[in-house]
């Protein structure tokens, strides 16, 4: 029965024109977790429902990790034998049913409402949110431009209205002040005005021209920590209070099939709460300090320090170093992939550091940015010269990588062959990685938005 219905969904999705997470229009199959609608776009493939990992993790209150290198998918650190699916747009999607079952939940097809219903064993603890965004567009932080890589994650609250938005006090106004000094530490602006402040939340980063081949969604390593297993325990007490009061009472059918631009993203209001403390990838200060993620007001100030420490690796903290392991330690990976006919390049992680190997220091006023990447020959021919990488910052200044500090060496790539490693760039303090370019022969540079 379930198989048949899932096949039906498959047909439905096919009829919609191969809807995928990035391109789905309104009219997609709704997904409910414990009766609460979550704003995701399921992809159904061979009868398996695939969902974006971060949203799923958040709504299940679980941690989902996927190690791209070892091809291991874990939920709450339990290995799941099912494999994720990467649609052409590059966003890794995880098999929802296998994950739910692993933690004792279930996934059902509700024929009446034509919806997917997920039940978790502890409905009370699941932090599934209705489509009620955090309030007030005006105060919503303007982070998207920061990080065009992952709109799905960094998406600010959209201009959706809901009862919770009206009833809840705006938590962000209160948060901004205490966070500011920290932001200043990491964002030596001076001549360089903080671009995030000027940004409005409704303007989404538009893909730079000429980068149509790239995807904004992760491919490869993904990981999302939900509140139940968040590694910053201090956040846990705050979580319940973050749930809008009417969370459980949302009538699924009553949710309008919104199609605002925000809606096409996988926005989930609860998500950022834990994604930021653990997101050690992108070190832009305002990203944290001004995002809706910044927890409700009642979180004591000591807690606010925690994400800072994990994210920024400030001087004095244990310096991050290029690590060999595909970064098991960090909880969030939002890899980006770009392809052309010859190469597929995936950046799996970005780190900012002030020293490398406790010894190498950048020039005064500079910092190091390390990009972990892999490059695959996706053509049918041997690629003798696999090109040269350079990085552009937000003002399109180009940087070559420091070969002696990096570990990425040219090799001749046979068809399917993969080269991997990390590139270290020495950039001015105020530079932010914007794009990685691969200059290979006889083709336009392959560009990845970071």
């Amino acid at each position, binding site marked *: 029965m379930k198989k048949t219905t899932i096949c039906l969904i498959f047909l439905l999705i096919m009829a919609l024109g191969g809807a995928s997470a990035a391109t789905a229009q309104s009219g997609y199959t709704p997904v409910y977790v414990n009766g609460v609608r979550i704003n995701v776009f399921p992809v159904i493939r061979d009868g398996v429902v695939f969902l974006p990992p971060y949203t799923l993790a958040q709504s299940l209150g679980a941690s989902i990790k996927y190690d791209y290198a070892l091809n291991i998918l874990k939920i709450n650190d339990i290995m799941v034998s099912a494999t994720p699916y990467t649609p052409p747009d590059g966003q890794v999607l995880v098999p929802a049913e296998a994950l739910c079952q692993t933690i004792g939940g279930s996934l059902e097809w509700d024929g009446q409402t034509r919806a997917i219903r997920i039940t978790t064993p502890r409905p009370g603890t699941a932090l599934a949110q209705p489509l009620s965004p955090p309030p007030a567009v005006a105060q919503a932080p303007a982070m998207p431009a920061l990080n065009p890589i992952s709109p799905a994650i960094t998406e600010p609250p959209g201009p959706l209205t809901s009862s919770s938005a009206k009833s809840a006090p705006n938590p962000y106004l209160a948060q901004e002040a205490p966070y500011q000094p920290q932001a200043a530490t990491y964002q030596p602006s001076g001549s360089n005005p903080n671009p995030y402040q000027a940004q409005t939340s409704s303007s989404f980063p538009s893909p730079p021209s000429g980068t149509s081949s790239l995807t904004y969604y992760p491919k490869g390593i993904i990981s999302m920590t939900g509140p139940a297993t968040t590694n910053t325990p201090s956040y846990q007490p705050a979580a319940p209070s973050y749930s809008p009061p009417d969370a459980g009472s949302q009538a699924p059918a009553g949710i309008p099939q919104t199609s605002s631009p925000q809606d096409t993203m996988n926005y989930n209001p609860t998500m950022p709460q834990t994604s930021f403390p653990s997101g050690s990838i992108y070190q832009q200060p305002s990203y944290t300090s001004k995002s809706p993620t910044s927890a409700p007001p009642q979180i004591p100030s000591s807690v606010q320090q925690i994400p800072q420490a994990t994210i920024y690796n400030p001087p004095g903290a244990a310096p991050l170093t290029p690590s*060999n392991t*595909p970064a098991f330690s960090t909880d969030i990976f939002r890899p980006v992939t770009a392809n052309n006919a010859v190469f597929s390049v995936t950046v799996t992680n970005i780190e900012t550091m002030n020293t490398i190997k406790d010894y190498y220091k950048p020039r005064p006023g500079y910092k190091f940015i390390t990009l972990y990447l892999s490059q695959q020959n996706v053509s049918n021919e041997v690629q003798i010269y696999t090109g040269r990488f350079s990085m552009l910052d937000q003002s399109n200044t180009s940087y070559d990588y420091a*070969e002696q500090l*990096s*570990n990425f*060496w040219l090799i001749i790539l046979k068809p399917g062959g993969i080269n991997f490693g990390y590139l270290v760039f020495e950039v001015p303090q105020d530079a932010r990685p914007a794009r990685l370019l691969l200059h290979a022969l006889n083709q336009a540079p392959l560009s990845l938005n970071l």
Partner: protein
Amino acid sequence: MHFKPKFFTLLSRMLALAFIFVLLGSRQIPAQDSQVYVTFWHAMDGQKGKVLRELVERFNMTHPGIIVDEKCVGKSERSFADAYNILFSSILENLAMKNPPDIAQVYENWTTQLIECGALVPMENFIRGQQGFNQNQLNDIFPVFLEANTYGKKIWTLPFNKSIYVLYYNKDAFWRANAAPPKTWTELRQLARKLTVSQGDYVQQYGLAFDPSVDTFGHWLYAYEGNFLTKSNEVGFNNTLGYKDIQYWVDLVNTDHSALPLPSGEALKEFQNQHAAMYIETTSKLSSMEKCNFNWGMAPLPKGSVKAYGFAGTNLAIFANSSPEKRQAAWTFVKWLLDTENTTEWAIQTGYLPVRKSAVESFQYKAYLRKNPEFTAAIDSLQHAICQPRISTWQTIRGIINDALFEAISKKKTPKKALDDAAKVIISQRYVK
């Protein structure tokens, strides 16, 4: 008015003459049709580049039919640029455009890849050819070098700028401590402790300065008959021997506090400043020792259960894209550059090892050894030299092991975990078979 036309005639004649001189003076490359023009790409900069340039000029003077155009491709203004990486990148880029150089310096792991894509002509073809080596000339090359250049029973490349790891030591410091160069790795550890001089918290002199790199890891591993990869090219370093190895270096730094782990260039400075009494590096750093205003010595690296020392440096390859004439001309140059006389001069002036036994026996080199008796340590080490893995991905594996050593020494991971993680990454990326 008489002199005016005369003057112009004179002037025009002089101009014409000057013009002819200019034409004669500037040697056009390529010049005449009869001359074969050969490109030679390398990464030799500075003093070594100068020595090489002089050798090439001498070749061009003595071989009228051939013009070798040497070019240091590895030069870069960028900070942290890697000369050899730029060289390989240039080779590959131009190879992909079917315009590679005729001759180039290549590392063993590059050769593996270049052979696979048919980019090289085996040296064997020339060695066995009419203008080749006779058996004596071939056997004259140190066997370990020939072995490292042999792929599938064929000699594909020939050794050029080779160096071997040795122990540099401060003779004055040793004299003060009444010590002799260590014979074994156990001795070295004891000696490093003995040589460490501190005043309160300040360490005036460390026993040893070393680069915590894959090569350092290799010294100990080789000495105890281990290797990075097994014979079937599987990861061979995350075993008991490897754990002991990495523990040795971690103990030197973190238990004994007798060694300074620093990037090689910085470790050299500490040695030069007498802030470290021993320093492990290849013989290519020999010329830097001129800056030492104390008595320094060179000893073979300590041994473990056996004597075994890693060697480094590149080889010469001839590319297949070139025309037969160019290939033959390239061979003429390679043969000339590696003959006894020139490899001797190259070795004396750069600190690289002569690649021929006859060079070591030569009058010039013997004189050089009399002047630099320390260098006999390097020549002695050569009998026990070991080539690092030649698989195409070796360079990345090197970086991964470098990072593992750093993680262990800086206590970010336990030595065992650091090695295991490194092995895991290498295996998971299928970087070995």
